[in-house]
């Protein structure tokens, strides 16, 4: 009986969030754009039109019935490469070392998870404890924020070399200050609530209060922010790829595809558009989705 009601409420919850998304036109459009790429990514796990890394065709072909989006400067099918390129962003991460170990969850996803974990811990400590904790943590964050993002990426990659984990690390470090600031301001707001006082008068530990009392109530804005951050991460991965220091081969990297196509821009102008569009739509989709969701959630609060 009890289990049944719980199950129902979970379904209910799912339906609630779906209807929340559908309530906002912006979020709906955004989620469609994101879903499109997610579906392509899953399909690419089992099937792509052609081998993404084989130069099976003539070089620099325009779109044609065989190669829907044409071929690149090495005669590879662009559509297959685009499909394959979604994987490493959204679905899988390649660990360094022997044996090509692959873990689920794309580089963008893990990067965001990393920055959330780091940022939330820092932000909650700064926001809830205040005083010296706040001063020190904020000072560190200030220093981190002061780094122009790309410079930080460049520095990290210059120092540690290329690789999925390095990109995840770079995204985590650059994202953490933003998350921390958000978590801090939320914690500072929530800690004034009486239920925090109640927990304190029960003599609860600081960590219990931060993670059990505060965090659940901050999760809404944090999740929306995380969604936005996945967009930023894809943005960043694209940029790194474009600069030639992104995710290493053999998997195609959208940013790198743009870069390569740019070099051949006079022989095949369209080749540059497809990966560029792919990045733009995915990022914009995530942005729209998060934005619409946020708007809808705040409207709920009103």
């Amino acid at each position, binding site marked *: 009986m009890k289990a049944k009601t719980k199950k129902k409420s979970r379904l209910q919850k799912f339906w609630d969030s779906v209807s929340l998304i559908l309530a906002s036109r912006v979020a709906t459009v955004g989620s469609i754009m994101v879903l499109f790429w997610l579906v392509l990514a899953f399909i690419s796990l089992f099937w792509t039109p052609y081998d993404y890394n084989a130069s099976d065709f003539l070089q620099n072909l325009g779109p044609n019935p065989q190669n829907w989006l044409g071929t690149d400067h090495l005669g590879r099918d662009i559509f297959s490469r685009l499909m394959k390129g979604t994987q490493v962003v959204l679905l899988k991460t390649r660990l360094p070392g022997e044996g090509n170990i692959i873990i689920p969850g794309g580089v963008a996803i893990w990067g965001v998870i990393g920055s959330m974990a780091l940022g939330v811990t820092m932000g909650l400590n700064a926001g809830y404890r205040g005083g010296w904790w706040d001063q020190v943590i904020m000072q560190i964050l200030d*220093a981190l924020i002061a*780094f*122009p*993002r*790309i*410079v930080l990426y460049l520095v990290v990659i210059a120092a540690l070399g290329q690789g999925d984990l390095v990109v995840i690390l770079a995204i985590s470090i650059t994202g953490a200050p933003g998350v921390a600031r958000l978590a801090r301001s939320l914690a500072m707001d929530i800690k004034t609530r009486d239920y925090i006082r109640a927990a304190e008068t029960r003599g609860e530990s600081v960590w219990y209060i931060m993670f059990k009392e505060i965090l659940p109530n901050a999760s809404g804005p944090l999740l929306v922010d995380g969604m936005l951050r996945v967009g930023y991460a894809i*943005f960043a991965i694209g*940029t790194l790829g*474009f600069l030639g220091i992104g995710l290493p081969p053999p998997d195609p990297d959208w940013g790198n595809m743009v870069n390569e196509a740019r070099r051949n821009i006079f022989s095949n102008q369209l080749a540059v558009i497809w990966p560029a569009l792919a990045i733009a739509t995915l990022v914009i989709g995530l942005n729209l989705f998060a934005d619409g969701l946020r708007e809808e959630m705040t409207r709920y609060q009103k």
Partner: protein
Amino acid sequence: MARFILRSIISTIVTMLLVSIALFVLIEVGSGDITVKILGVFATPEQRASYRAQLGLDAPVWQRYIDWLIGNDWRAKRKVGYPLVTATNPQTGEKDWYADVDGQLTRWKMEEGRLITLKRQEDGSVTSHLSSGAWKINEEGNEYFWGVDTKNNTVMWMRGEGAEVWALTKAGLRKEGDGPQKYIPLRKGLLRGDPGISLQYGRPVAVTLIPRIRNTLVLAGVAFAVIMPLALFLGILAGINEGKPLDRFISITSLGATATPEFVTGIFLILIFGIWLKWLPAVALFTSADAIFENPKLLALPVLTLTAVELGYIARMTRASMVEVMESDYIRTAIIKGMPKTRIILKHAIRNALMAPITIIMLHVNWLVGGLVVVEVIFGYPGLGYYIYKSAIFGDFNAIEAAAMVTVAIAIITRLLGDLAYTLLNPRIRYS
């Protein structure tokens, strides 16, 4: 207010210090053996060690950090026993180090086991003579001499024990005798305007960096001047028309523009204006460092790209702030007081609405700098961003440290300015 400002300034200084340590440690410790990059993979361990010593990389990290930050001439001075000064080399225009021996600019070199004093005359010519009496004796009874060599190092020679060193010349590594035992590559330090020698170019970083900074300031300045008024205007416009089609249009467009990476925007713009319409040069041809001053048209696409990306962000911030302000109680008061709409917007709303974005905009300058890297790479623009990129790829740590510190300084100083502007706009802080 004094408290607030003082606090910002202290925080700025602490931040800079923290950043410099982090940067230094990350790069110098994190990056592997730089000699691989410079000497190639075929150099022998012995060659590498020798070269590392010449670069001063054998010193402990904290020592190198201090040298890098505030220079090491004051440290070397104690060894040499004379004040160390710089003088301009008439051929390269760069500064060379000398010891100031009783008013004479002096350097030394070792040739076939003998120490030779080189004195630079007023007219720039150099006289050389043997100086055998200069040797000092250490505890073990060896004769040694600390002096300034011709490659701007403070070095220690041992009499009769000329070390074998590998010198990097244009032709490659060459083995030389008569080498010094110890090197202190002289530098004034970052704070005194000398971040060291670029490994990539073999010239002082400062010399190569300054024109780049200038170029970037031009690009960023023009972009900033275009973006700020436009973005604030559009943001306010959207904010006061919340929910109306105009707002929708501005919001969605700016969201799209912001969410599109710079390199995508840049390439679209190249395609459209450079290749299809042929209005503007598709690839900026910066033949010289001064090209932008000769042909300002070259700036158009880089500026446009930056504008597209940054505009949206600031406009959205401003819009959100404006919407919030327009819903506030004091605006309601103004409406209930029967104030005309234009007056409400201009007198009551804008000042409050700009308070939040201004700090955020200033914080956002480092985002702009990040964008600069990409934009400069796309267009081959000879600016700071491109320089950082190149240095990072090469592993030119002196260069990247210096360039990164410059960007960080720009970011932090603008943030400080933002804080100050906020203080001035917000009477709550101004009068407390």
